């Protein structure tokens, strides 16, 4: 048993740190640290910087132009990036569609789409959820009817993150009648510039238009954009849901969030004492820090298992559950640390009509916003209720 990184991994970590120090623009990391929205250009800028070093697709094998990293290396990159407040790599093309095309796509699809993900020509978004379906992804209603060498797509997708910036969307569509809901689903790649597509932003609790509804009105999609076989889409969708979960725990985000929380609690003063020295608040912070120490190790234990070829299911659901709880607890304590300043409405304070800085401590502008926005953590990517079901099933088998 040796709980430290190997010399190779330590060297890699140093390399990542140096890279982030050299190449991450403060302009971007400041915005990330303050939980401000990045523009499309800023996100693309960071992708390009990473791709220049061949570090954009850490989870792709070298044959497809990826970094070919081990699970531990990917973990190190993700953690260091979070600690440095680097923008996150957008998952839709790199983490989701890429591996799916590599496994199930045709050679033509691989040749056509993978390079465009790496060089930034395509911005992908995800068309899984539909209105009213919630966590029940298999209840797909959006239809794709074959008409010659095209499918004609009609229906609606929702919760499409950053879909307003995308030029491509991958979708689950219904191509056949289903005895069971999981049958008759296909996986289509759709050009967002096709006639008949409308994108409507959904403003969230925190005032940001992060997700969208996407409407399809007789959208023509060439049959060569079908991935794998018709009516086998559920298999591919499940692959995406269960694969590529190395960063599911969000240890890096939690670690940098905890550091910010402590910074704020040291600065906030009540009754002549820093909030961090208030025994009750200190206990709440310590509790979450201790939880995070344990979860980091769970995460590393899983990575070691993944590196040894195992694909743990229940454990990864536990990481999602606990990781979410820890990050939301940190967001909650950060908001609470700011006391009356947490009342300021984040959206207006951040992008408000006037140029004056928001009132109160600098962190007040984002603390409530981060809290509100991150309530999504326990809802999306398989809600925490779904995760509990997976854990119980794998244990109880009932």
């Amino acid at each position, binding site marked *: 048993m040796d709980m430290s990184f190997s010399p190779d991994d330590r060297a890699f970590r140093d390399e990542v740190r140096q890279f982030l120090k050299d190449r991450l623009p403060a302009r971007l990391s400041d915005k990330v640290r303050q939980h401000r929205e990045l523009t499309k250009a800023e996100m693309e800028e960071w992708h390009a910087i990473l791709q220049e070093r061949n570090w954009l697709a850490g989870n792709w094998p070298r044959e497809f132009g990826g970094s070919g990293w081990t699970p531990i290396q990917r973990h190190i990159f993700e953690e260091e990036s979070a600690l440095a407040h680097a923008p996150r790599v957008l998952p839709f093309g790199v983490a989701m569609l890429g591996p799916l095309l590599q496994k199930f796509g045709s050679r033509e699809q691989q040749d056509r789409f993978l390079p465009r993900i790496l060089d930034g020509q395509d911005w992908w978004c995800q068309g899984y*959820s539909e209105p*009213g*379906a*919630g*966590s*029940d992804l298999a*209840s797909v209603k959006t239809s794709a009817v074959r008409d010659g060498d095209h499918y004609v797509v009609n229906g609606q997708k*929702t*919760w499409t993150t950053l879909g307003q910036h995308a030029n491509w969307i991958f979708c689950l569509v219904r191509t056949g009648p289903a005895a069971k809901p999981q049958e008759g689903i296909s996986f289509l790649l759709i050009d967002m510039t096709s006639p008949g597509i409308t994108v409507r932003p*959904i*403003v*969230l*609790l925190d*005032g940001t238009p992060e997700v969208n509804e996407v409407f399809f009105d007789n959208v023509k999609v060439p049959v060569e954009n079908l991935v794998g076989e018709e009516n086998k889409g559920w298999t591919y969708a499940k692959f995406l849901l269960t694969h590529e979960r190395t960063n599911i725990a969000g240890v890096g985000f939690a670690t940098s969030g905890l550091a910010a929380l402590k910074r704020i609690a040291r600065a*906030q*003063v*009540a*009754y*002549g004492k820093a*909030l961090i020295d208030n025994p*009750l*608040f200190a206990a*709440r912070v310590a509790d979450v820090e201790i939880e995070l120490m344990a979860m980091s190790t769970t995460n590393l234990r899983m990575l070691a298992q993944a590196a040894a070829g195992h694909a743990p299911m229940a454990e990864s659901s536990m990481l999602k559950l606990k990781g979410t709880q820890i990050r*939301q607890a940190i967001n*909650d304590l950060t*908001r*609470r640390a700011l*006391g*009356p*300043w*947490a*009342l*300021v*409405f*984040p959206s*207006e*304070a951040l992008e*408000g009509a006037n140029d*004056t800085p*928001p*009132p*109160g401590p600098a962190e007040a502008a984002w603390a*409530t916003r981060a*809290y*509100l926005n991150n*309530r*999504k953590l*326990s*809802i*999306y990517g398989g*809600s*925490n*209720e779904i995760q*509990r079901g997976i854990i119980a099933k794998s244990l109880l088998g009932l």
Partner: protein
Amino acid sequence: MDFRFTDEQTMLGDSLARTLERGGDAAAVFELGTGAALLPEEAGGFGGTGPDVLMVFRTLGCAAAVTPLLDSVVLGAGILAAAGEGALAEAASTGGARIAVALDEPGQRYDGTVATRADRGHLTGEKAVVHGAEDASHLIVLATDGLHLVEAGAEGLAIRSYALIDGARAAEVTLKETPARRLGDAALLDRPMAAAILALCADALGVMETAVALTTDYLKTRKQFGRAIGSFQAIQHRMADLLTEVEQARSAVWNLAGHLDAPDRDRHVAATKSLVGRVALQVAEETIQLHGGIGMTEEYELAPLVRRLLAADARFGDSDHHLERFIVLGAA
């Protein structure tokens, strides 16, 4: 032992609820005499007891109505009445005057530290997160030597206004040798502040009731995996726990309403604000989670309720602050 409201209280609550349902604004709320119901008789009102405050603010909370009643009447007119400023108090209670009360200061966290100084009838200092300042005809300002009255537009008075998460607006207020009239000691605040905390908690209770009703409705009608979401046992048990907590919050609010003028008022203030703050956060988080994605969206009616619950905890000292107050009061 009697938990019932008087007929007058019930009638006011009913007509207030109807007015709000019809989309009545703050002016319509004042027209009903709501302000007078929040003012003690000796100050020209016809109420201001704990149950009066409870009835009015729970009803406002249920409808998630944004009004200046808490700041301008319960707090503002309450202080004015205690200071013997009957005329202005009455004007505030009818909506004719609008009072903002400036207590907190930058860099301070619920501890009541004040640096604003009075010097021969003029105030100098900075006040933070002053609710309703931009619409106020008068500001009541807490300085080191007590409370002062400042008129809107007074010399040296600067107001920088912004939106709050609960839909109200507040401002950073700067006073630079601003003319002011002293109202009296800071102790004038005690009863109005206790009443304001009751108002805030009763409002939060109303908000919680609406948020829970909305969630219940959603769980009964929305289907997932071919069944109403509310038919899933894990969801049912969480709703049961949530309802039990809301029932606790209800009793805590009743406790404070019943002890607003009792000798152990401060203990009830601390207990109620601590418990209601904790439950408010729990209701906010659980109702979002039980809704799923839709609960995260601005366009769904849960959003303003959730933010109002966060605000209820954050204002006048949060759950932990009042837990510590409760400990100090018990040790004393």
